[in-house]
């Protein structure tokens, strides 16, 4: 039905209306993305990278947490397989955003490609939960939510990358922003979940692997063991999930 109504109206009007409906939903994200984006840009700058790195990485990767991790990897030894696997694991949650959006993205035409490409945590949260008015084209609404969020993020990262070199204060310790971010994400997950088995397994297995394999080689064994243990515990954890 949406498609037929959309076809009758003037395309420009539809886009403007969707933009006006989408923008207010993205204001909190603008604040967060500019702040985190600038921090990310400064972090790359003080790590010795030109602003072109945060600019292009924020544009092409467009997944905050993995971009911070990539800075670390760029400063380490060349290991493309680890980069691929680590990004795959960190972003594995996107698979489940995608599964949730299968229906919502139906009938959005060519825009669907960008809707999938730009599906970050924040865009997913807004597009998954927003009550889009009936007279607003939902495809264009979600498109503008994605686009605005990406603009905020790339702008922040680029500004941070450019002005990072003009910063007069001592930035030693700024890299902790990444640790702080993941601690907060971990806590958000912890506060939401009823069963902490998986959170504790993630911490515990990784810590043991770090001690056993050392800082440069612990990621892949950690991932493999986490996947194996979670698979073995499937019956227990699924039963537990049904109870709660």
């Amino acid at each position, binding site marked *: 039905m949406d498609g037929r109504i959309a076809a009758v109206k003037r395309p420009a009007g539809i886009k403007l209306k969707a933009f006006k409906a989408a923008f207010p939903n993205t204001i909190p994200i603008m604040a967060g993305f500019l702040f985190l984006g600038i921090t990310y840009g400064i972090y790359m700058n003080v790590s010795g990278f030109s602003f072109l790195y945060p600019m292009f990485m924020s544009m092409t990767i467009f997944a905050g947490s993995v971009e911070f991790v990539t800075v670390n990897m760029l400063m380490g030894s060349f290991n493309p397989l680890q980069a691929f696997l680590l990004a795959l694991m960190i972003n594995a949650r996107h698979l489940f955003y995608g599964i949730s959006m*299968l229906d919502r993205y139906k009938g959005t035409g060519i825009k669907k490609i960008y809707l999938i490409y730009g599906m970050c945590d924040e865009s997913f949260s807004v597009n998954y939960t927003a009550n889009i008015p009936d007279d607003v084209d939902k495809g264009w609404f979600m498109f503008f939510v994605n686009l605005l969020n990406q603009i905020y993020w790339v702008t922040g990262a680029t500004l941070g990358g450019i002005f990072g070199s003009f910063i007069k204060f001592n*930035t030693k310790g700024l890299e902790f922003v990444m640790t702080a971010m993941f601690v907060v994400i971990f806590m958000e997950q912890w506060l939401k979940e009823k069963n902490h088995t998986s959170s504790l397994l993630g911490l515990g297995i990784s810590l043991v692997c770090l001690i056993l394999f050392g800082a440069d080689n612990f990621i892949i064994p950690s991932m493999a063991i986490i996947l194996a243990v979670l698979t073995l515990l499937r019956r227990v954890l699924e039963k537990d999930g049904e109870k709660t």
Partner: protein
Amino acid sequence: MTLAQQIITIAMVVLATVITRFLPFIVFPSGKPTPKYVQYLGKVLPAAVFGLLVIYCLKSVDVTAWSYGLPELISIAVVAGLHLWKRQMLLSIAGGTVCYMLLVQFVFC
């Protein structure tokens, strides 16, 4: 790393990210029921990955040498405390980072 190696590294990250985003739409084109095992992983995997990421951030901390991981420990406690108190993501991140910067620049220097 050379420029080419950096570009390859970034390209691998882009490729992996794009795969995670597009795969469901390729595998489940008409909204067929998702396999139970995939649904299960979708529920339990993120929590474990976040735990792994916290450890990943702390991988270079040496608890046997001076500062003994104390700046990290204190700052994580500040992040956790702020977050339990106000539950404002940006405040917790900013507060913990400022705390860590002050500690490594003035206290544990």
